[in-house]
């Protein structure tokens, strides 16, 4: 049904608009911008801040344009002394209860509250504070919440609930005591939160931010006894330029490498190397499951938010998850075994830093089972628990890397273009596309097809699995057997596919799931803002980089071939099993009761 067009007046001029759309949207169509604070396109319209007020003829008080709608004959005024006053007062009321910590706040100069206060010309601090100071939530290994900086816009709750269907946070209390809470104030680290960081990505202020690990990494870089190597996820090369003031989606692989060298990393490697390795392992795992009538569909396991989601919400179906570790974790264990041995480095002195678009990766790196390299060496070297180390020591998000560049005075856009170090820095186009939704599927299909048929692929571009549609499907013919595959991004979409599996109605053999909208390029650690337009630009650059690569299939990566020849021997072999594959934990909803991880963590702390 076509919506009826109606006539409206904005600031005295005539316009047409679809009947019943919000005034804000109608004005935008007419090219008239109205300032907003709590409203976020596609995410939340909870009408809490009062910044978007306008005058509507016939209405006694000012009207919030983000939720009030237009009708035939609506007459709107978007700028008057009364409007400007009201907008300013509303922001002043928010600021009265806001700690003015801008200088030491992670969102300084990237904060919507700061911007709106300045845009609206807020000059004095006339209202008294009415709210009590609340404690920070530091229980999560990925995120820190500061309820004092919260303006109750509701965006985080909307993303967590409607987009991710996790519902880890919600409002609690009423009136002046209203705040964003986890269940029983347990803290994000003690409830079923996936650490996806989408809440931090949409928060207009510094009320939810990544746990900042830059100081620790700076310290390691200064330590002459340590060999500090870095790996970069595919999505960083299309995000870090943006965070350093370049255009959205700028493809800056070579500059990023150069910048990391200037920060003092001993070697600059690429997570894409182990993305190729993941394809080798996961591709063979899929083929094995198909031929041995194993559990199908198999679902990808690179996205740690998704893994934790499955552990909480589908604890009885974890056998559907591929046992492959994520590329980040594969990198850690390969670096501290194969590479360390090859270069004669004591793995205990090696520090692996990851640059990730993702806050959940911080949590993943600290999962107690992610110490495969230590387990590998321990008996051979006669090491004790005191020597224990994680495969990946630190995880920094794109935003943290930008902070390190700035602190170090690096002029990013003037950097030269440099190459990754070898042998664990080389990758194919198949690895680049891990950064976009559908990429892991496409990369796997490129390899699986050639392994099964023994024939070269005529067209390596599986365009059916590309793009921003929530759930995508495709069929592939593997030597006469047709398999159906699906790709989902956001946990809400993943939930739909998992429910289908639990009802035994899933027609698929293989499913790719990415936690974040758009895939990793829209990850919770990426530059703010991340909108659909920006996601599309980052995706274009990802597929451009794939085209730039001379090799575009993981099994053609010569360094991967060498890794198998010299060390791992074969996909799914004995060493792979220990170093590249993992297990999952049935967590369920009431996480504080499942203390396996907590117990192990405590043991670890004691060991230290």
């Amino acid at each position, binding site marked *: 049904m076509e919506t009826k067009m109606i006539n409206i007046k904005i600031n005295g001029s005539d316009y047409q608009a679809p009947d019943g759309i919000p005034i804000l949207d109608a004005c935008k169509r007419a090219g008239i911008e109205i300032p907003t604070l709590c409203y976020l396109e596609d995410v939340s319209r909870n009408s809490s801040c009062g910044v978007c007020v306008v005058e509507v003829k016939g209405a006694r008080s000012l009207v919030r344009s983000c939720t009030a709608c237009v009708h035939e004959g609506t007459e709107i005024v978007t700028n008057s002394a009364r409007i400007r006053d009201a907008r300013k007062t509303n922001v002043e009321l928010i600021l009265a209860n806001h700690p003015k910590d801008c200088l030491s706040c992670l969102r300084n100069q990237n904060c919507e509250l700061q911007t709106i206060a300045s845009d609206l010309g807020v000059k004095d601090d006339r209202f008294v504070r009415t709210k*009590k100071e609340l404690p920070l939530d530091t229980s999560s290994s990925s995120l820190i919440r500061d309820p004092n900086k919260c303006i109750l816009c509701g965006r985080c709750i909307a993303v967590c*609930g409607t987009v991710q269907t996790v*519902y*880890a*946070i*919600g*409002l*609690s*209390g*009423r009136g002046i005591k209203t705040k964003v*809470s*986890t*269940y*029983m104030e347990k803290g994000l680290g003690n*409830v*079923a939160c996936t650490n996806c960081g989408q809440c931090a990505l949409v928060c207009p202020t510094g009320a939810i931010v990544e746990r900042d690990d830059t100081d620790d990494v700076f310290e390691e870089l200064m330590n002459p006894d340590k060999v500090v190597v870095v790996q970069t996820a595919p999505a960083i090369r299309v995000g870090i330029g943006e965070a350093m003031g370049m255009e959205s989606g700028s493809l800056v692989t070579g500059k990023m490498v150069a910048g990391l060298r200037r920060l003092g990393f001993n070697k600059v490697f690429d997570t894409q190397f182990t993305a190729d390795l993941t394809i080798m392992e996961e591709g063979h795992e899929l083929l094995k499951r198909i031929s041995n009538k194993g559990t199908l569909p198999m679902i990808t396991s690179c996205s740690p938010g998704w893994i934790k989601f499955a552990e909480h919400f589908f604890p009885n179906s974890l056998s559907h998850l591929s046992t492959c570790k994520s590329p980040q974790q594969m990198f850690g264990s390969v670096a501290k075994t194969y590479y360390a041995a090859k270069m004669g480095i004591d793995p205990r002195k090696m520090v692996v830093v990851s640059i990730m678009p993702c806050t959940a990766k911080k949590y993943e790196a600290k999962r107690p089972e992610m110490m495969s390299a230590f387990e590998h060496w321990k008996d051979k070297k006669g090491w004790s628990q005191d020597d224990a180390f994680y495969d990946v020591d630190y995880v920094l998000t794109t935003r943290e890397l930008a902070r390190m560049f700035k602190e170090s005075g690096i002029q990013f856009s003037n950097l030269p273009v440099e190459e990754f170090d070898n042998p664990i820095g080389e990758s194919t186009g198949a690895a680049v596309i891990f950064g976009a939704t559908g990429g892991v599927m496409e990369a796997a299909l490129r390899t699986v097809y050639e392994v099964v048929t023994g024939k070269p692929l005529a067209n390596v571009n599986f365009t059916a699995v590309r793009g921003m549609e929530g759930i995508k499907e495709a069929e592939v013919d593997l030597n006469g057997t047709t398999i159906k595959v699906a790709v989902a991004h956001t946990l809400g979409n993943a939930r739909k596919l998992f429910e289908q599996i639990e009802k035994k109605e899933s027609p698929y053999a293989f499913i790719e799931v990415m936690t974040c909208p758009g895939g990793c390029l829209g990850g919770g650690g990426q530059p703010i803002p991340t909108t659909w337009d920006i996601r599309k630009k980052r995706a274009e650059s990802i597929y451009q980089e794939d085209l730039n690569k001379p090799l575009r299939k993981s099994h053609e990566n010569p360094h991967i071939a060498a890794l198998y020849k010299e060390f791992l021997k074969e996909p799914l072999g004995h060493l792979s099993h220990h170093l590249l594959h993992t297990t999952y934990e049935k967590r369920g*909803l*009431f996480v504080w009761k499942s203390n396996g991880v907590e117990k192990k963590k405590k043991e670890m702390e004691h060991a230290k």
Partner: protein
Amino acid sequence: MDGTQTMTREFQEIDSIISKHKGHHGELLSILEETQLLNGQKFLSEEALNHVALRTGVPLSRVYNVVTFFSFFNLKPQGKHTVTVCRGTACHTKGSKALLDDLGLMLGCSKALEDGESFFTTPDNQFTISTVACFGQCALAPVVAVDGVIYSNVTTARLQKLLGKISKGRKKS
């Protein structure tokens, strides 16, 4: 009966409350209201809330939102007797703050009251002290309600007597 048995019985009772209200308007509110009455201390324990969430499929954060929004839900055990001190302006000028402080001393909960907790239950679960913004009985200030009965022009001495009586009555029974 040990703790787990009590809990299992409570869970069964919650299940029947849930099936009774299934599909009705305002389902969650009714379920929680009745669940709160199950344990004799008029509060919703974490276990009970978990069970309600599990069986209704309502996310835990949503359940928590509801139980913290409505003041008739309690997340801590309520004492047998309730003492509610009015903190309205009239009562305040007539010394309700001093009454509250004295109550705190009498019942050993000064610390909690100082921390701004809006209510406190004594460790023996006999008394729950709470405050209210205004009873609307300003002419009779200061006003205190004990077990729902409003007492006017209350002094510390009177309060002491009252509570003493209640405690004694308790010892006899």
